[in-house]
């Protein structure tokens, strides 16, 4: 039985529909991320779970109890805010102990629990500091401890790391995940950073314009995106225009060269124009038997550290393809202007239908958002 269940959730702000028909069931102890571009309704959904927004329609059930109309202070749902929202007039210990004080726990109990939590977040020596005496990462850890202090049924985090710099972001997200596993607490995590979502979550909910695009494990989301939006939003994608040759055999023509898709192209007719998407890490350099092959000219080489990203262009303007090779000092990186051939398996071809071609025009924008 799911622990947290959202059924038919809708939210309108006046004329703006921020969330439509949101259905989601989360198992006990599961770590679920909401991933999507800015303004897609992630925060709004999270705030409805916390009780700060009333859904226009739908129900929210936690552990068998309908909490849709409960006041936020009756829900026992812990929330970590993007801006930390630590109380500036209280020390770290008082901040963490706030929820227990509100619940009229004894001083000893509060003290004991606060020490435990400060231990958990590795800040035992900062108990009597004030928030402004802490770094951003430390403040966010205190905010996490504060949310956990009340032993909430569900933990909600709204882009908790977005105000921190890249290094701390990685270490703190691992810490959050470790604590979450240790406590086994059901968690909803909002982010617009796909790497964060992929590395942390048991399951990811990809959202766009207030709707769920796909729910799945990181593996499913990344490798088997069910819509063009998900394919483009998660990961970096090559988009090439192609023409259908034989829909039943699944053959296409891209850059004037024949390639094969994994299966038949449903609803396609010979000569139809469509788009093929390819992930860069699936493409390899050189001709390989049994694989699709495309030849072109090296257009650009970008050195990314462990990886080298090579972009090749085709004679007929059908687009460019980037692919990655490992940075091996013993192997020569192709020079610009040289002719090369790349290979990729038929399963790597994501055939996007016509409606998605228009949307595919701006994948960079989505990544940036």
């Amino acid at each position, binding site marked *: 039985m799911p622990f947290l269940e959202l059924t038919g959730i809708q939210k309108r702000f006046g004329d703006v529909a921020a969330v439509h028909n949101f259905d989601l069931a989360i198992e006990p102890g599961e770590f679920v991320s909401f991933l999507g571009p800015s303004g897609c309704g992630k925060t709004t959904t999270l705030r409805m779970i916390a009780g*700060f927004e009333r859904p226009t329609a739908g129900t929210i059930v936690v552990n068998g109890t309908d909490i849709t109309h409960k006041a936020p*202070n009756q829900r026992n749902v812990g929330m970590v805010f993007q801006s930390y929202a630590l109380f*500036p007039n*209280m020390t770290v210990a008082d901040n963490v102990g706030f929820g227990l004080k509100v619940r009229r726990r004894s001083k000893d109990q509060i003290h004991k629990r606060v020490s435990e939590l400060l231990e958990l977040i590795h800040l035992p020596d900062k108990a009597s500091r004030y928030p402004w005496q802490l770094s951003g990462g430390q403040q966010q850890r205190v905010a996490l401890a504060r949310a956990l202090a*009340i032993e909430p049924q569900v933990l909600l985090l709204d882009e908790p790391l977005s105000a921190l710099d890249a290094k701390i972001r990685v270490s703190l997200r691992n810490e959050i995940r470790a604590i979450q596993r240790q406590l086994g607490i059901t968690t909803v995590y909002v982010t617009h950073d796909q790497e964060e979502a992929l590395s942390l979550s048991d399951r990811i909910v990809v959202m766009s314009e207030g709707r769920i695009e796909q729910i799945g494990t990181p593996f499913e989301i990344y490798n088997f995106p069910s819509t063009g939006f998900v394919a483009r939003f998660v990961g970096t994608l090559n988009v090439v225009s192609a023409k259908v040759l034989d829909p039943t055999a699944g053959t296409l023509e891209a850059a004037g060269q024949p390639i094969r898709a994994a299966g038949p192209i449903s609803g396609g007719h010979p000569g139809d124009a469509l788009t093929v998407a390819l992930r860069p890490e699936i493409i390899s350099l050189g001709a390989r038997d049994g694989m699709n092959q495309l030849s072109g000219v090296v257009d650009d080489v970008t050195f990314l550290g462990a990886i080298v990203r090579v972009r090749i262009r085709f004679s007929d303007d059908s687009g460019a393809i980037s692919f990655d090779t490992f940075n091996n000092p013993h192997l020569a990186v192709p020079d610009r202007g040289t002719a090369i051939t790349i290979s990729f398996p038929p399963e790597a071809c994501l055939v996007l239908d016509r409606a998605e071609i228009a949307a595919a025009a701006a994948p960079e924008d989505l990544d940036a958002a």
Partner: protein
Amino acid sequence: MTNAALPLSAPGTPSARPVRRRFSWGWLGIVPFLLFAFLFLIAPTFYLVIGSLQNAKGTFTLENFAQLFTPSILQTYENSIEISLVTALAGGLFGFLLAYAVISGGLPGILRSALMTFSGVASNFAGVPLALAFVFTLGRVGLFTIFLRDVLNIDIYGAGFSLYSKIGLEIVYLYFQFPLMVLIIAPAIDGLKKDWREAAENMGASSFQYWRRVALPILMPSLLGTMILLFGNSFGAQATAYQLTGGFIDIVTIAISRQMRGDVLYDPNLGYALAMGMVIIMAISIAGYSLLQRRSERWLK
């Protein structure tokens, strides 16, 4: 500051220049201000300090200060302090509620800017016009007095009220006190983050608990600091009281002008000493204000 100065004293520049640059003439930038403040603020005030330590013949004496402790003058200070205290507390409290109502009370946003501009005018609507407005309203035959008497059957003057007394003056002062509170406290109320309230609720706090443990402690330095400012504001007011009572109310500013104007009681040196006593009280209150101000600035960052 160091950032901006850095390129100028970078190593490698000819040796004579960095030395001169380090011996910066930059402080010249604030000389006009200091000069002006000295000429028209500090020197004249200093003159009072000297005057308060002299008698009419110009010889040094502490006599003037000793006179401050005579019962009648102590009574004058007491009146001023009482009026200032009452109007600072009442004006501060009501001004805060009013500011909170328009900022966070869920009233239409337009009311906020209307109240702010209005408060800007009203906080400076002191002196003659203000006194007149209240005479026409709460005077013996004022509009509101008559309204209370004829319509609601409350005869306030019959019950001992007088606009020309302490309580009357307090009501009049409130007219500029609470708008001043609204103006100064508004940024502090804006500084209360919505997230704090939500975080508190999220941890199970009721509205009351949020106010008691979070909002009020955070606002307290600003609240007290602004009330201190209100205290000083009403302590220093003169024109309103003068116009309202014709100079017949016993408060410090009126006493000073009486001593210096050369009416019956002419003793400018005593006037200076009275003024010094006032400066000291005001200085204490302003010092308290900036202390609290610094504290709340740190919090609201």
